[in-house]
């Protein structure tokens, strides 16, 4: 009963959020300067042709009309077609205004579903690496507040936080790829290509995990039921594993939800440096090419992902701490 009510309410909220995001992006894209049709047909094409194509694509209709048309497509699972990308692959050159390839422009949905797995893979690996390093450090720090593990965690965190990701990316690529030749860096051919960018991202996320965990573990360890557990006869290992860590994990869960959403939405810099063919790179190119349908499609998909992750995290949190069921 709780679950049903919770899901209904949160999904309804989610739909509203996604609609708002879509509308905002849609309007913004249409009011900022720069005509996508001009980019499509190239600088040499006559103005009349530009107008003609724009009319034909419906780009001169009032914004609400365009939006309504777009939405009706979206609810049927049709995110439209890319302005510039042919179904076959690389972006269309600017000079090709003879329009022969119009019919074969790529479906936005296809572009996203082809790219997203790379980003998800990158995000998951980065998350896993970050957790493997940060969880023991954070827990250890939280168990001995003010003493050396805590201080060490603090220093390590500060160092990680202050490393710029583009710099780290370049250094890692130079060392491991160019000099040692252990790992590939640019593009994507197999799983190994994910490792270096994932390390860069993990370094970015780890300090947040360390900090959150050490604070929440230290806080839980000060709770009276932890002290009382020892007097009740429970062993120290059991107290930490079964009680302290479980209750300390709720703030971590929230943090992971936010971080994962951010990773999905745009690891722009890192994907750009490593030329990693994920959603980030797709976004950058779409923006550079003023590929409106693609930008919108990415925005919708990432905001849906954001909403779902949030719901999932909150659901998990109430399962750990039932007091959160309000």
């Amino acid at each position, binding site marked *: *009963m*709780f679950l*049903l*009510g*919770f899901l*209904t*309410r949160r999904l309804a909220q989610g739909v509203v959020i996604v609609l708002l995001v879509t509308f905002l992006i849609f309007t913004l894209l249409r009011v900022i300067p720069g005509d996508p049709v001009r980019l499509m047909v190239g600088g040499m094409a006559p103005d009349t042709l530009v107008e003609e194509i724009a009319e034909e694509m419906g780009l001169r209709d009032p914004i609400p009309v365009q939006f309504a048309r777009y939405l009706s497509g979206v609810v049927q699972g049709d995110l439209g077609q890319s302005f510039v990308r042919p179904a076959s692959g690389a972006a269309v050159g600017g000079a090709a205004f003879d329009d022969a390839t119009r019919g074969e422009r790529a479906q936005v949905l296809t572009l996203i579903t082809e790219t997203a797995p790379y980003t998800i893979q990158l995000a998951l690996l980065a998350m896993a690496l970050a957790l493997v390093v940060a969880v023991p450090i954070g827990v250890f720090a939280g168990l001995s507040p003010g003493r050396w593990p805590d201080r060490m965690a603090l220093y390590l965190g500060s160092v990680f936080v202050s490393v710029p990701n583009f710099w780290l990316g370049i250094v890692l690529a130079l060392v491991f790829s160019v000099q040692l030749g252990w790992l590939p860096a640019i593009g994507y051919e197999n799983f190994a290509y994910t490792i270096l960018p994932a390390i860069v991202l993990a370094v970015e996320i780890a300090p947040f995990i360390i900090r959150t965990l050490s604070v929440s573990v230290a806080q839980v360890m000060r*709770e*009276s*039921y932890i*002290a*009382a*557990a*020892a*007097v*009740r*006869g*429970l*062993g120290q290992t*059991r107290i930490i594993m*079964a*009680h302290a860590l*479980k*209750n300390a994990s709720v703030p971590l869960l929230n943090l992971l939800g936010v971080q994962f959403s951010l990773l999905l939405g745009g690891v722009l810099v890192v994907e750009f440096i490593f030329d990693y063919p994920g959603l980030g790179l797709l976004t950058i190119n779409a923006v550079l090419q003023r590929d409106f349908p693609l930008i919108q499609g990415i925005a919708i998909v990432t905001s849906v992902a954001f909403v779902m992750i949030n719901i999932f995290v909150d659901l998990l949190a109430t399962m*750990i*701490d*039932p*007091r959160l*069921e*309000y």
Partner: protein
Amino acid sequence: MTDTPLLGVRGLTVEAGRAEAAPRILDDVSFSLQAKRILGVIGPGGSGKTTLAHALVNWLRPPLEVTSGEIRFRGEDILAMPSDRAARLRGKTIAYVGGDPQGAMNPTMHVGEQIIEKLRAVEPGVSYKEARERAVALLGAVHIPSPEQRFGEYPFQYSGGMMQRAMIVDALIANPELLIADSITQPLDVTVGAQILKLMRELSERFDTAILFISASLPTVADVADEVLVLEGGRVAECAPVDDVISRPRHAATRKLINELPKLWHRDGTTPVAATDKAQTVLSVQNVSRVYPIKNKSGLGKPKLLQAVRDVSFDIHAGENFGVVGESGCGKSTLMRLLTALEKPDTGHIVFDGEDVFGRGRAGTRRFRREVQLVLQDPFGSLPPQSSIGEIISEPLVIHGEGDRRRRRARALDMMGEVGLDKSLYESLPTRLTAGQRQRVNVARAMILEPRLMIMDETLSALDQTEQSRLIDLFERLQAQHGFTYLFISHDIALVRRVCARIAVMYLGEVVELAANERLFFDPGHPYSKALLSAAPTLEDRRYRPEDCLLEGEPPSPIDLPPGCAFASRCPSAHDRCREVNPPPVYRGEHDRAACHLLQPEPVAS
């Protein structure tokens, strides 16, 4: 073998640190406890009772440590044992229950699971199934209703009294030989505390457990213990059988404890009397109700209603002390928020000085905020730690834009003098003050605007008897000088007996009885009033025997109340009509009234 006591403590000394000048918290404490006996430990606040309990279960936290002495359990010194052996005694052979039941269990795990976890930690051979059976059986034995269902609930779904029972189950489930119970009734309502005491007696007989029963209240200890040990300043003042301690106290500390006990049925002509009819009505509460909608858990469906205050009416006359008593959750604090205009009632009127509190203009509201002042319970939370005491006391003058700096300082110093705070404290921070001093700061701060009505919401609850008595004397003196009217909101029936002329008894949001002090204590009309009186801790001969009046269970939830008398679920005299019709107030004389079907109206004596 028979000569060795179960627990023998010799020369136990606990100090806060190893330094030469380290304070001694326990000083040369010696006593012994035989198997299956109950030894009570009493002493004023800070006398070292909790420290003693913690030392016995090896739970002293730095800087506290045992610097000399021995604790022999069955002849073997616990302090000299290898630490893993001592650890195995904890929870298994020596169990502990403290005064903070809500904080004693993990809030995110079922209560039952935690009891099982504990049992299996100290008795690894027990199967899950057997542990569960034992836990459910014991939960039933301590009178937790429907234990099977309660087993799978979380601590926050338990009331304080139920949680305390669960902690007792947790302590007893491994059949310990010694149970250390520190202030276990302190956080509970008196009627629930009385049930727990009864339970302790039953359990010690049934399970043959020796109990070290610690409490600050002599009547409570006298109720359960065979022998009493009196602690005073960390030393043993005396140790003797209960009756001897009460009838022939040998030590000054014991006599002091006995003398300070409030007398409920002692007539010495000092009972506060009600103001005459001609006295002006300061505050008039007329049919006031407050309902809170409670959001449904899933967020769907229509919200339930929590009726916090229901149709409450009374008048407070100038110069008269009015008391509101009732147990936790009866709506006292909601009433306080309504009376101080922090919240608006849903129905009814609150009239101060002839004018509706919520119908006043700006100037009227401002005047109201000056003339009605509130002093709250928690002396530790309510003072801002960064401001000096002088600043805190003179702050209301600043808020109301009064006087210049020099005059405000003079006023604040005056107030400090009046409430008995040393003027040299003006510049100090409140962190170093004792609980009593902090409460004086709060009183001075409330008085500085020269209010007409002071509302004391559990103001004295956190203080020990001595400090309470001093503050009550102070209140009386201030009243004589400034003509304040006091409204005391309290769960402490002995306190209202001592200071209030008229008393309203609240139960589940309603005033079930309103009577003059003498009448309420010598001839209560409502069964709930009788139950409260029978449960009050006292050494006097009780006028109302717990066997006749003591309640079972706890107040039902104020959400979705059933029709009829709200007290019917616990009332020893409930009958069919009570479950259908809510009894209207019945007047017993001109001013006193109680709401119970059993009462007959009494004509007004002319």
